[in-house]
């Protein structure tokens, strides 16, 4: 998940209880996505353990990765997405978890841990924090007004079928500015392997995307939340939790905007955000204590109830709020899960081809 929440954003250091720690103080430095935790969890952790939490946020996997590769980040826990995690493990920026210090690992959902093995074989370096899907957020009334009352809505045709997209263009379509998500989605729609990483695959995706490019008002990875909620646009490709946030904001505003999150029938990307400890972390002991704490069922449930994303903790399910565990947009049915796909990390050459393709789509260069 690449949340480009404002590129050069004031990566606001929400230093919860950021008091200058003296040498004896126990500290853990956490670097997580913005708006991705219930902050009372951090306070309660400090209360119980006496370990101070210095909490800092980022807005894109790329920024996190650049910091990790440069080294000496000063962070003890970071939260990369699966595909990025895999490359970073290979680059040697993480240390293996000491599982003897993580008894709460038994709470984790074996199904999710197994999926995570694609990126972290043997689950040696990371634990899953949250997972979600990349689908479509629509303004139901505006879309039906243009496509007809009984139009089929649970399909990628809304975005990728030229004729349909043309009809929706005037009310505004946004697309994520994240090639690692948009290209697999395009390939999947074309009936090709979403994980295909060849020049031919990228060219096919480029052709399809260039065709609908004139209908897309903007490529952006966070503005769609407000735009959907305010009724400024009628469709966006985006991340599940973000679109659900838009849905709630629209409902709160009560201005006649109804937003719905769709996992299209052709399938959608499933991604995982995971916690890992950098190899040069200064507070390894404290980091393990935090990981063990966050894996407690009640704590993990509290986090999910707050951010509207599903977590990889099976034991937490009984503590989840009804509107979280009962919402198929957050916890999809088994049948829907079967239609979800995952992608593997790109190597340097593939990464370059992927980003070059994306530049070509966006700028026509």
């Amino acid at each position, binding site marked *: 998940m690449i949340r480009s929440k404002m*590129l*050069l954003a*004031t990566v606001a250091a929400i230093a919860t209880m950021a008091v200058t720690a003296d040498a004896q103080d126990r500290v853990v430095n956490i670097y997580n996505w913005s708006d991705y935790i219930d902050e009372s969890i951090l306070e309660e952790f400090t209360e119980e353990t006496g370990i101070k939490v210095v909490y800092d946020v980022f807005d*894109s996997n*790329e*920024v996190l*990765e*650049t910091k*990790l*590769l*440069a*080294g000496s980040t000063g962070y003890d826990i970071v939260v990369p997405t699966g595909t990025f995690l895999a*490359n970073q493990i*290979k*680059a*040697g*920026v993480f240390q293996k978890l000491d599982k003897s210090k993580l008894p709460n690992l038994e709470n984790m959902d074996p199904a999710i841990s197994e999926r995570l093995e694609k990126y972290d074989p043997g689950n040696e370096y990371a634990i899953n924090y949250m997972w979600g899907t990349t689908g479509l957020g629509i303004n139901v009334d505006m879309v039906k007004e243009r496509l007809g009352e009984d139009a089929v809505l649970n399909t990628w045709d809304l975005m990728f079928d030229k004729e349909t997209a043309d009809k929706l263009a005037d009310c505004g379509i946004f697309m994520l*500015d994240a*090639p690692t998500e948009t290209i697999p989605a395009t390939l999947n729609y074309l009936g090709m392997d979403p994980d295909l990483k060849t020049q031919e695959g990228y060219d096919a995706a480029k052709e399809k995307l260039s065709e609908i490019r004139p209908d897309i008002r*903007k*490529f952006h990875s966070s503005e769609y939340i407000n735009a959907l909620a305010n009724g400024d646009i009628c469709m966006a490709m985006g991340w599940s939790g973000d679109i659900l946030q838009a849905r709630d904001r629209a409902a709160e505003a009560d201005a006649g905007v109804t937003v719905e999150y769709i996992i299209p029938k052709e399938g959608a990307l499933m991604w995982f955000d995971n916690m890992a400890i950098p190899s040069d972390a200064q507070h390894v002991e404290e980091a393990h204590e935090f990981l063990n704490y966050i894996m407690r069922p009640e704590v993990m449930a509290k986090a999910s109830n707050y951010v509207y994303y599903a977590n990889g903790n099976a034991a937490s399910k009984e503590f989840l709020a009804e509107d979280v565990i009962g919402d198929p947009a957050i916890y999809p049915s088994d049948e829907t899960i079967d239609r979800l796909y995952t992608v593997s990390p790109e*190597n*340097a050459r593939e*990464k*370059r081809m992927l*980003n*070059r393709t994306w*530049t070509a789509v*966006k*700028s*026509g*260069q």
Partner: protein
Amino acid sequence: MMRALTNRLVILIPYVWLLFFFLLPFLIVLRISLSDLEYGAPPYTPQFSFSDGWSVIWEKLSALDFENFSFLASDSLYINSYLSSLQIALVSTFLTLLLGFPLAYGMARAPDGVRPILLMLVILPFWTSFLIRVYAWIGILKQEGLLNQLLLWLGVIDAPLEILSTNKAVYIGIVYSYLPFMVLPIYSTLEKLDESLVEAARDLGCTRIGAFWKVTARLAVPGIMAGCLLVFIPAVGEFVIPDLLGGSGTLMIGKTLWTEFFNNSDWTVASAIAIILLIVLVVPIVWFQNAQAKATEAGG
């Protein structure tokens, strides 16, 4: 004796500054640009080390293939980014001059009591963060933004103008952000300008406009040049303004470099882009300084 030593030390300071904050970083970037890409921390393998000794470095240097530089030539994206950056910077520098000169002229001609206030007003925007000022332009320029609402209300336009996410917004952003850098040097030359020279020209039969062109404008050239360089150079490498105000079609080298560094994690190509950018900028500056030095010699 003591004084001579102090003088020398004072002269030394700018050189030491240049050494540590320009030459050394430049060498580090140059070394990365000659390295091979590798996925690791850091994500490149250097071809040589500064501790190798000169002869070894020289030997290794002559064996280099400069593949990161030849890569830049292989894809038109890079050359187009450079050209488009130069064009955007040139046009915005010209626009800034058009706006900045009358401002500076007016300030220099203002009564003594008012001048410090005007100067203060030019500097005042710096009290707010650059990033926030650029963000504010999003609110002004967007479809339902202040500007469109005002124009619609006045009846100048029927439908909102599409300015944000186009190159127009980039021009507006650059001109706005860099205007003080144009105004201040021009103001400082105009303020020092000896009024009696203009009077002399008028006494000798020059028209008002003629005196302005032949005396005031001529004498303001150093200030104009300084202002233009202060605007042009940072504008070429600008990243924040095209990223926030420009659209996905806005091609600027700063954005291309960002993509290499962050999206491709390719520090080697990113460094090569930076080196070429530096050459593109340094060569005209050096040429300009030489030309100016010659002009001073000839004139003096």
